[in-house]
């Protein structure tokens, strides 16, 4: 264990570490653009220059530790060079923070205020390049903002392995460009390059000019797209910045989704499906309890359901593998004795969707199959002649398979034709409206928190199961 000195502080380092890694581990911040913990070292931004006694300046990200070396990260020489590097980087950068989606979370912006703060020394024209270059149907590239840190090209070469990006030409007219025969659009992890871009060069088309990031806040959540259960952050408008006019739906809609770093599950990445959860969560909601399609108050629907349960002799329940651990446990506790319970697979792989790969994507496209099977076993739903009540929780089940004589209690969140066919329909909340946990296929439990309020007649399934277990209040 070589001992090194950073700014006079003695630090035990491991032999395979670089000075930058040692500094980060011990809370000493060295600025960098191109370095990324998950990618190879290219050392091209030169922002992490530090001074080593007797050796002068060199980059910390590519500097192996040497016993006894004395590193200075804040010497006058280092500060002067950082300032100059930022002058070089902003020389041809448009500095159009006012219209840039990255503003507020941009490394260049932060460093400029921390380490430079001066106006550009150059009065000459900047090098012009392409704006809004179409990398794929998800990502736009602004070559003027690009600082050529090559994080995106390294991501496509080392992580997603699509090899979709490269550098064209040389010098200050170098451009990131897609490789002709390897379209970025076919890379299911492509949107991660938008996150790792240290500046606003790569822009998500979903989020393009949608919101300033300081009006948004992230809520930790779990992606329900497959059994991997990647942790994500759902970005939505801060309550103090709620719109009072214009399109108020924006106040309760998802602005964007980014990964929440989690070494146990997904590292710093998620797939593009995880970015598109609005496709799942922002479908038209069913927020009104119904009896055979007739809207009724919640209490009446609950009563009707209790009566059905009370009268049934062979009730069967199909539980959702989109239910949280808490909801599944509540079902087991309150209704597990009453029903023959089977686990239902709410979502099947869609056409064209990647089924499985080495990085994250898993074949089961539901978030909580592991916990549901743990509680209720792996048997497929089965009925017999005496089945007189079926409780279906969640979507994705063909009602034609339910015996004709059986009554149906249906718990769903989204508008669907089946809602009106059920004898009792109860509206339940979705993931963004409640807190809970999912257990992924490896057994790792991750938490999600509510982002938005739910509708008046919408119930959390956990509460609903408890209410269903209470005795019926007699005939109306």
């Amino acid at each position, binding site marked *: 264990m070589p001992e090194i000195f950073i700014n006079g502080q003695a630090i035990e380092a491991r032999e395979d570490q670089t000075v930058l890694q040692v500094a980060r581990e011990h809370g000493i911040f060295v600025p960098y653009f191109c370095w990324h913990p998950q990618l190879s070292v290219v050392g091209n*931004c*030169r922002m992490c220059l530090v001074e080593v006694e007797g050796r002068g300046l060199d980059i910390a990200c590519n500097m192996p530790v040497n016993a006894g070396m004395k590193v200075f990260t804040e010497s006058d020489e280092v500060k002067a*060079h950082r300032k100059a590097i930022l002058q*070089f980087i902003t020389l041809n950068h448009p500095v159009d923070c006012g219209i840039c989606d990255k503003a507020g979370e941009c490394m260049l912006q932060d460093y400029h205020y921390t380490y430079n703060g001066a106006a550009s020394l150059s009065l000459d024209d900047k090098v012009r390049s392409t704006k809004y270059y179409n990398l794929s149907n998800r990502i736009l590239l602004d070559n003027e903002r690009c600082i050529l840190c090559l994080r995106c090209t390294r991501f496509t070469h080392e992580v997603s392995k699509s090899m979709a990006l490269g550098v064209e030409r*040389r*010098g200050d*007219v170098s451009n990131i460009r897609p490789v002709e025969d390897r379209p970025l659009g076919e890379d299911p992890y492509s949107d991660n390059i938008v996150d790792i871009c240290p500046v606003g060069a790569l822009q998500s088309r979903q989020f393009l000019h949608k919101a300033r990031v300081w009006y948004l806040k992230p809520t930790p959540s779990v992606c329900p797209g497959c059994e991997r259960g990647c942790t994500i952050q759902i970005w939505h408008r801060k309550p103090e910045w709620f719109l009072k006019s214009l399109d108020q739906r924006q106040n309760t809609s998802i602005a964007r989704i980014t990964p929440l770093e989690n070494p146990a599950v997904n590292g710093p990445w998620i797939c593009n499906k995880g970015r598109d959860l609005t496709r799942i969560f922002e479908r038209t909601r069913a927020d009104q309890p119904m009896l055979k399609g007739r809207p009724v108050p919640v209490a009446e629907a609950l009563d009707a359901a209790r009566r059905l349960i009370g009268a049934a002799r062979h009730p069967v329940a199909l539980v959702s593998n989109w239910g949280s651990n808490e909801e599944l446990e509540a079902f087991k506790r309150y209704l597990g004795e009453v029903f023959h319970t089977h686990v239902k697979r709410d979502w099947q792989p869609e056409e064209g969707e990647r089924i499985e790969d080495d990085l994250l994507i898993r074949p089961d496209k539901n978030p909580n199959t592991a916990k549901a099977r743990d509680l209720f076993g792996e048997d497929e739903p089965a009925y017999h002649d005496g089945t007189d009540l079926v409780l279906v929780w969640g979507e994705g089940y063909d009602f034609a398979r339910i015996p004709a004589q059986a009554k149906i209690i249906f718990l769903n969140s989204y508008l669907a034709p089946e809602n009106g066919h059920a004898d009792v329909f109860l509206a339940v909340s979705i993931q963004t409206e409640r807190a809970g946990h999912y257990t992924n296929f490896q057994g790792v439990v991750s938490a999600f928190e509510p982002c938005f309020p739910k509708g008046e007649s919408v119930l959390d399934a956990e509460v609903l199961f408890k209410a269903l277990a209470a005795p019926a209040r007699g005939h109306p």
Partner: protein
Amino acid sequence: MTFPVTSTSHSLAEYRARGGYVALEKALKQMQPQDVTKEVTASGLQGRGGAAFSMGRKWQVVVPDDGQPHYLIANADEGEPGTFKDRWILENNPHMLVESMLIASYALGVRNCFVYIRGEFDLPYRRLAGAVEEAYAAGYFGEHILGTGFSCDIVVYRGAGAYVAGEASGLLASLEGKKSYPRNRPPRLTVKGLYQRPTVVNNVESLSNIAWIIAHGAAAFKEVGTPKSPGTRLFSVSGHVNRPGVYEVELGYPWMKFLEEDCGGIQGGRAIKCVVPGGVSSKVLTGADIADLKLSHEALWDAGSTLGSGGMIVIAEGTCMVTLLAIMLRFYHHESCGQCTPCRHGTGWMHRIIDRIVAGGGRPEDIERLYYISKFNDGTTICGLGDAAGYACTGILDKFRDEFEYYIEHKRSRHDGNLECLRSS
């Protein structure tokens, strides 16, 4: 003595007649690989590509039989402006390089060696390729060379015209089929080079000395030159001299004598304004600076410059230094690979400033700005290109600052041939 260049002087038969491939036989049959390295180290031979690093010390890092492949690469990507000495070797004496590479491969435990030749070289490429064919036909390459256990193959690879591919690690990237982006050190190339294996990259001229050293011994090599700069060097002289060309000069030779007598003096009998000693990446020296200088590495280092690649450009009195610098900086801007920040933007910035000065739009702070860019390009980049652009710039600015001030103030060159009184109104 001059080398008798004829239409067949590059052929194997004539090379053999001059005593060629004797050293190879001696090395393979009478010496162990480490003896060859020892001999080269003892000769004190320095690299001829620009850095003048000791060849022996570079070779010593490579352990010949450590169980992994090694590579030897002759850097024939001669791109430094003003330099055309390797071209001469490749055109007129390619077998000297081929034989030396075989000896070096033997010393370093190399099975496959490469020549990375710049794409613009046509005749040199054809001559070298012809020499390699002749050498294969004569059994100098392939399995069991000269009946010994040593086997070696060679690949001649043509570059695509990037100056930065002449930088050793950029060259390797290009040879691997990638964009010629130089790599960060560590690891050094002698530890992890081509395909992540120990690799020695040597300049064509440096390598070409090996055959002679092995044939005649390190002691004989050290008899020529100065103690710190042994041997001879090729200088490619261009600019305002009467007889430009490639000259082999023993190190320590008086500089003015070389220019006045060997190169035939300055055109039109003018005074020397300055000399670029070794490619434009070395700092210029004025006529007064070089008056008593000898052509050796140590003398040039003392004078604040370097012999560099031996590309000597002689500039006579009356030349506009502002325009000269503009030409140099345009070159660096054009050739910057764009990998690391200071060089990518710094070279372009310097070029825009100098172009504006030449166009008459100079501002008084521009000179300070050029110094600023040069300062922060120096030592902050991955390879030496950024540094070199700064050296070229500060070298000229230090010595001819008044000319730049004049240009900026009067919006014209002091050397444009117009009398000042005609322009004063």
